[in-house]
C-alpha cells in the first residue's frame, strides 16, 4: 500500500468502514433487483470502493462532487445515509430526491453531491461550473468530477478542461478507468493516452492504483490542497474494476470479458481485503474488530432496506410538483 495520507486510527477506520458501507449497499441493491423488488436497473460500484472513498475522504462537506450512472459509491462516500438512499432506489417519498430521481439521479445536496447523471459525461460541465462559482465567490471549495473511461470519448470533457485550465479552476477530473464501458474494452474506444489528453490542455495529470485506498487518498489530499491554493485543475486516472456486469441485469458476460479476469481482480486486488490486511498488519485494528465493524454495517444496510421497502410512495399529487422552483 502507498504511504498514508490519513494519519490516525479514526481516519483509517472511517475509510475502511466507508468502503464496507458501499459494498454492503451494493450487495443489497443487487439483491433487491434479483428479487424483483427494485424498479428498473442499476449499476453496481462494487470493486471500485477505494476510488470514491480515497477521494471523498480528502474532501470537506462543503466541497462538491458530481457523480455518474454508477453513483452509489460516490454518494455513500460523500456522506449519504442508507435509508434515504434505499428509499430513493425504491422510488419512495423519503428518498433523497423524493423518489423522483432514482438510482441514476441520486443527489444529496446536503453533503455536496450535485447528483448522479444518466448522460455519460453529462456532469463534466456541472462540476466545472461548481468550481467556477467557488472561484468567483472566493470560497475555497474544491469540486471533484467523477466519470468513467467511456466518458472520455465525449467532447464535452475537452471543452470544459480547456476552460478549467484557462481559468485555473479548482476542479479535479477523476476518471474511473474500470477497463470497460458497457460491453466494450477501453482500448477499443480510447486512442492514445487518456492522461496525455489532459496534459495537452496544460493540466497536470496522474495515474494511480484505484484499488489502493491509501494511494488514492494521498494523491487526492495533495491535489485538493493544491486546488484550494489556486493550482487547479487536475486530472487523475484511477485504474479500477467493476465486479458486476455493466448493470445488474448484465449476468452472462463471458462474450466480452473472461471469468478469470474477474476472479483475479476480486481475489488479488480487492480494495477492501487489501486495506483490511494492511490495517491488521500495521496493528491498527484486529481481525475481530473489523469483523464486528463489517457485521454492524451489514445489519445497518439490511435494516435500511427493510425500512425502505415499507416506506410510502410519494403521493400522486407530487407528479407535477417541482417542475419549476418557486
Amino acid at each position, binding site marked *: 500500500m502507498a504511504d498514508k495520507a490519513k494519519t490516525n486510527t479514526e481516519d483509517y477506520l472511517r475509510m475502511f468502514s466507508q468502503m464496507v458501507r458501499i459494498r454492503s449497499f451494493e450487495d443489497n441493491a443487487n439483491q433487491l433487483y434479483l428479487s424483483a423488488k427494485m424498479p428498473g436497473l442499476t449499476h453496481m460500484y462494487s470493486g471500485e470502493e477505494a476510488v470514491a472513498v480515497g477521494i471523498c475522504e480528502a474532501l470537506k462537506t462543503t466541497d462538491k462532487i458530481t457523480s455518474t450512472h454508477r453513483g452509489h459509491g460516490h454518494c455513500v462516500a460523500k456522506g449519504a445515509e442508507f435509508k434515504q438512499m434505499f428509499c430513493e432506489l425504491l422510488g419512495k417519498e423519503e428518498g433523497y430526491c423524493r*423518489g423522483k430521481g432514482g438510482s441514476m439521479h441520486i443527489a444529496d445536496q446536503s453533503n455536496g453531491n450535485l447528483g448522479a447523471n444518466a448522460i455519460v459525461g453529462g456532469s463534466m460541465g456541472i462540476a466545472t461550473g461548481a468550481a467556477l462559482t467557488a472561484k468567483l465567490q472566493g470560497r475555497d471549495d474544491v469540486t471533484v468530477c467523477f466519470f468513467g473511461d467511456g466518458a472520455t470519448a465525449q467532447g464535452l470533457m475537452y471543452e470544459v478542461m480547456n476552460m478549467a485550465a484557462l481559468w485555473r479552476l479548482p476542479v479535479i477530473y477523476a476518471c474511473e478507468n474500470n477497463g470497460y464501458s458497457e460491453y466494450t474494452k477501453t482500448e477499443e474506444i480510447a486512442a492514445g493516452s487518456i492522461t496525455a489528453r489532459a496534459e495537452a490542455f496544460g493540466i497536470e495529470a496522474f495515474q494511480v492504483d484505484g484499488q489502493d485506498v491509501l494511494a488514492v487518498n494521498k494523491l487526492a489530499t495533495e491535489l485538493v490542497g493544491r486546488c484550494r491554493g489556486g493550482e487547479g485543475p487536475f486530472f487523475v486516472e484511477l485504474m479500477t474494476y467493476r465486479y458486476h456486469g455493466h448493470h445488474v441485469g448484465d449476468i452472462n458476460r463471458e462474450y466480452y470479458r473472461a471469468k478469470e479476469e474477474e476472479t483475479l481482480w476480486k481475489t488479488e486486488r480487492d480494495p477492501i481485503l487489501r486495506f483490511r490486511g494492511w490495517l491488521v498488519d500495521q496493528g491498527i485494528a484486529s481481525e475481530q474488530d473489523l469483523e464486528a465493524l463489517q457485521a454492524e454495517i451489514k445489519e445497518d444496510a439490511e435494516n435500511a432496506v427493510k425500512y425502505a421497502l415499507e416506506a410510502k410512495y410519494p403521493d400522486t399529487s407530487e407528479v407535477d410538483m417541482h417542475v419549476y422552483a418557486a
Partner: protein
Amino acid sequence: MREITLSKAVNEAIAEEMRRDETVFVIGEDVAEAGTPFKVLSGLVEEFGTARVIDTPIAEPGFMGIAVGAAMTGSRPIVDLMFGDFIFLIMDQLCNQAAKTHYMSGGKLNVPLVLRTNLGATRRSAAQHSQSLQALVAHIPGLKVAMPSSAYEAKGLMKTAIRDNNPVVIFEDKLMYQDKAPVPEEDYLIPFGVANVKREGSDITLIGTSSMVQVAEAAAEILAREGISAEVIDPRTIVPLDEAALVASVRKTSRAIVIDEGHQSYGVTSEIASRLNEQAFYHLDAPVLRMGAMDVPVPFSPALEDLTVPTPEAVAVQARRLCAGEMIHAA
C-alpha cells in the same frame, strides 16, 4: 403468417437491406458483438463483419457527424442511438447539418441516412432515459420521421427509410421490442406519408402514434362495449404526414382525439390537432382533443411515472365526453 417480435423485424429489415446494398452500414455504441443493449442487432456483426457493423466510443455527436459525412459521399449509414433522450446531444449534426445539406447545396448533395432510436416511458428509467422526443425532430424541415406501431410497420418503414435519399429518424417504442405481430416473409416496403386505418368506426377518430396506437386500440375496445364506434388511425410517419387520410376520417366521425407519448405542450398532438381543426372545422362537433405525456420530466418512482402517460382508460373517458356531446371548456 408467421409472427415475429418488433426487435426481430428491425433486425431483418436491416439485414435484408445490407444484403441488397453494400453501401449500407450500421454505426453506434455496442452494436456489434453486444448487438445493442436491447439486443435488436444481434447476429448482424456475424454476418456482415465489423467493417459494416461498427462499434463506436460513447461519442454521439461524433459518430452522428461521421454518418453525415459518410452519407454525403456514397454510404448509407444506419445510426444507432441507444436512447431517444440522447438526441439532444446530436441535434446540431442532425438538424443543422444532415437536415439542411440537400437544400443548402441547391440539391447537389444528399444525406441518405437513417437514425434509429427509441421512445417511451414506464420502464422506471427516469427523466434522462424515458423521453419521446419526436416533436423536436418533426419541427425541422429536411428530416423525415417514422413511428412504427408494430413489428409489421417496424420492418416496412425501416426498409423504406434505408432506401430513402434523405435523413430519416425512426423512433421505436422500447417497450414494444418483444411484442409480436404477423410479418410477411417476402420483401415489402411501407411508403412514407400513408396512414393506416387500424380499425374503422363512425363516432370518433382516435389518432395514435407508435406506442399510443395500442392505447388507442384498447380504448376503442372499451368504447365498443359501450356502443361507441371509434376509428383508430396510425399515421405511421409524422413527416410526411398523411393529412388527407386523417382529415377524411375526422370529417366522417366529427370528433377526434390525438394521442402521442411526447410531452403534450408544443408537441406532436398540437400539430395534428391544428391541422384537423383547420381542415375539418366545419365538420367538427367538438374540439379536437390532444393527449400527450404530462408536461413534467419523467419521474422515476413507479407511483408517479405511470400517471404521466396516456392510458386506454383515460382516452376512453375523453372519448365518452366528446361523444356525449358534453361541452368541452365552454365558457
